[in-house]
């Protein structure tokens, strides 16, 4: 067969060759090493370099981690323990500070006996998010909601939640699980009222406030129903007016009167008690929830044919994107009072949320605009030809597709915003990273402790942000699979 001329004459193989194993150096671990680590001089050098870096990192930090102390009441005690256990001059981490003060990093100055409330709030957040975030996959929903339910209830029990609230939380969580098995859109009403419930759980006070906030749009809707036959636009304007007027004029007094009639309140917790990750998450979640709709509106405005609307959107977006968030936070803390009627004063956390929302919305608008621009013109025309009006076309046709395209950008905006919640330290709020650590270090026992809080806080941020980015990848893949 190896004869050259054999090849030029007709040739037929009678028996097929079986598949053979590759030569030793071409298979298994050796081949893997050769192709992946030592495939050439450059690669070998890189491998060595990589190994060196790893060795350097491990050798520098290993004993520091290995010699960590979890049980001490002050830095000096830590040092003493390290010196006693591993000898004089040994270095070691003092994670005891986390053990001692974890609650401050997590809950800030929230009253200890009410820790269960934020826990429940964020547990139920998962239920509220389930119809939105995990709508497609039953198995993921099952896992997420199952874990949430177990963790939340366990934490609430440990944190000493009253039985009534335990039952309430358990009921909602179980309802979520059941709905998740049957038809997750049953949970949508809960998702809709959740924002108000969440605010109420966190800040406490009377439930009548949130209830009357909800009643406002109800009146608005009634007005809209009544007028929508006459003129949809007029109806919309009136509906908004009615809602806002109700909130401004009636809601406060009504809530007070109702509270007097039928007290429905839990312990109020003031904003200055918020701190640590509770603060970050509150600002982050509120910012995310608010900036997405605002971003959509801005993006639509920027894509509008109406010159004035478009220019306003452009100016707003470019202005917000052109300045650092920190200056906006300064505006929130220093200037907002200039711009409001004399004597008005509102919660600093709320102000920060507004600024963070505006900031994220400007970025979001650009991301979504990219998605809108990527839609073929035919989609708009088809919607027009079917007789859908502008808003219906946007809601049913354009936005679902544009948002899908923009998911990676949206999520990275979220991640950026969540990371930026640490900047609130510069306006005197107790973020988990700097202010809270400074506060902990202001105590004589923990003076001089730096690395451990950084590592702790950093790790939590990493988990959350990394999780979000993985989730966006999952979502992207899922939507691609679904529609193509």
């Amino acid at each position, binding site marked *: 067969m190896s004869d050259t001329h054999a090849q030029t004459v007709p040739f037929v193989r009678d028996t097929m060759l079986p598949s053979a194993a590759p030569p030793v150096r071409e298979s298994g671990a050796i081949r893997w090493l050769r192709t992946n680590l030592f495939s050439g001089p450059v690669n070998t050098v890189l491998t060595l370099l990589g190994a060196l870096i790893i060795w350097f990192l491990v050798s520098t930090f290993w004993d520091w981690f290995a010699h960590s102390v979890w049980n001490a009441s002050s830095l000096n005690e830590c040092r003493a323990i390290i010196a006693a256990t591993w000898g004089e001059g040994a270095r070691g981490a003092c994670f005891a500070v986390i053990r001692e003060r974890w609650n401050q990093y997590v809950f800030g100055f929230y009253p200890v006996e009410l820790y269960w409330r934020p826990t429940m709030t964020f547990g139920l957040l998962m239920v509220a998010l389930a119809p939105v975030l995990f709508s497609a996959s039953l198995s993921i929903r099952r896992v997420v909601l199952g874990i949430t339910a177990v963790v939340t209830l366990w934490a609430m029990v440990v944190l000493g939640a009253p039985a009534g609230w335990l039952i309430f939380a358990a009921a909602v969580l179980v309802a979520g699980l059941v709905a998740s098995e049957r038809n997750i859109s049953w949970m949508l009403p809960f998702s809709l009222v959740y924002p108000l419930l969440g605010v109420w759980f966190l800040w406490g006070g009377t439930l009548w406030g949130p209830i009357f906030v909800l009643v406002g749009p109800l009146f608005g809707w009634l007005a809209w129903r009544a007028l929508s036959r006459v003129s949809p636009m007029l109806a919309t304007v009136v509906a908004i007016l009615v809602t806002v007027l109700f909130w401004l004029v009636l809601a406060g007094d009504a809530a007070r009167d109702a509270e007097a009639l039928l007290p429905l309140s839990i312990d109020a917790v003031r904003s200055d*008690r918020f701190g640590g990750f509770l603060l970050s998450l509150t600002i982050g979640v509120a910012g995310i929830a608010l900036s997405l709709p605002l971003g959509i509106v801005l993006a639509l405005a920027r894509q509008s044919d109406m010159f004035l609307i478009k220019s306003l959107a452009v100016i707003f977006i470019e202005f917000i994107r052109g300045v650092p968030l920190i200056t906006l936070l300064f505006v929130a803390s*220093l200037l907002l009072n200039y711009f409001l009627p004399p004597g008005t004063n509102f919660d600093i956390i709320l102000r920060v949320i507004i600024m963070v929302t505006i900031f994220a919305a400007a970025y979001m608008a650009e991301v979504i605009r990219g998605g809108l621009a990527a839609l073929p013109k035919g989609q708009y025309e088809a919607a027009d030809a079917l007789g859908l009006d502008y808003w219906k076309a946007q809601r049913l046709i354009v936005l679902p597709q544009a948002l899908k395209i923009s998911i990676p950008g949206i999520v990275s905006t979220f991640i950026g915003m969540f990371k930026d919640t640490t900047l609130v330290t510069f306006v005197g709020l107790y973020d988990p990273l700097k202010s809270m650590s400074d506060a902990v270090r202001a105590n*004589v026992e923990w003076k001089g402790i730096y690395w451990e809080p950084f590592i702790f806080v950093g790790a939590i941020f990493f988990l959350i942000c990394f999780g979000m980015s993985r989730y966006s990848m999952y979502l992207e893949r899922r939507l691609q699979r679904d529609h193509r």
Partner: protein
Amino acid sequence: QEGSTLAQVKERGELNCGVNTGLVGFAAPDASGNWTGFDVAFCRALAAAVLGDPAKVKFVPTTGQTRFTALSSGEVDVLARNSTWTYSRDTDLKLDFIGVNYYDGQGFMVRSDLGVTSAKELDGATICIQTGTTTELNLADYFRANNMTYTPVNIDSNAEGEQQYMAGACDAYTTDASGLAATRAAFADPETHIILPEIISKEPLGPAVRHGDSNWGDIARWTLNALIAAEEYGVTSRNIEELVRSSENPEVQRLLGTTDELGAMMGLDAEWARRAILAGGNYGEIFAANIGEQTPIGLARGLNAQWTQGGLLYAPPFR
């Protein structure tokens, strides 16, 4: 009286008090978020005087940057944040300092092994300094006046200053002497640090209110004075009930509202001062409890002793 601060505070049922974000001894939240400290005690006394309950205070932590704005924008009703009373702040910034609750001066702390015994020897040194404070200006002036140079290391908070100083990132740490003492006291090895003898500035620290609402200014001013006067007359939180009943001293009687209705002149009731003193004790008690020699801060009374003891504290008469 509608828009007046007093009316607002009463209506709100809570006093908004601007404090430091965290300066041990003066104002700092503890692990569960309860504020304690020398400045905090004044806020509580004021709340007690106005609202009848020392707990009805909302502490608004302010940074060096945000403190005066917080006050002038109405976010806080009174600023009790170890701020120096200066001409321009009183006039240009439109604040009213209502008195001095701590007479301080700017000093320097160095390591003793640096071999420096006087601030005059600090030529060329690197000095840690908190931005946005009067100390920054004093430092510049002092070194210029003495024809010396220095490199500032700007820091954002006291905690950070300590970190830099401890690590040797600056040769000297300058701030108000009280702060230095407090910082030094908290060190693991206080004896290896010395506070240089030069006090390069006058730093009368005091609470401030907004310009323009004189009645509110009076309330704050006389609450402070009541605390100081109480110490002078020996009125303490422990013996006050008894003195209310038995004091013969007419000044004490007026102070405690047993005779004359001094409170009414400011729109308060008769017992305002009594409550203020009960909240955390008189000036001396507050001092001793928060920054006195028995505390880790360990400050001596010094200039802050009563005038009768050779100090500068001198409350105007209650009549």
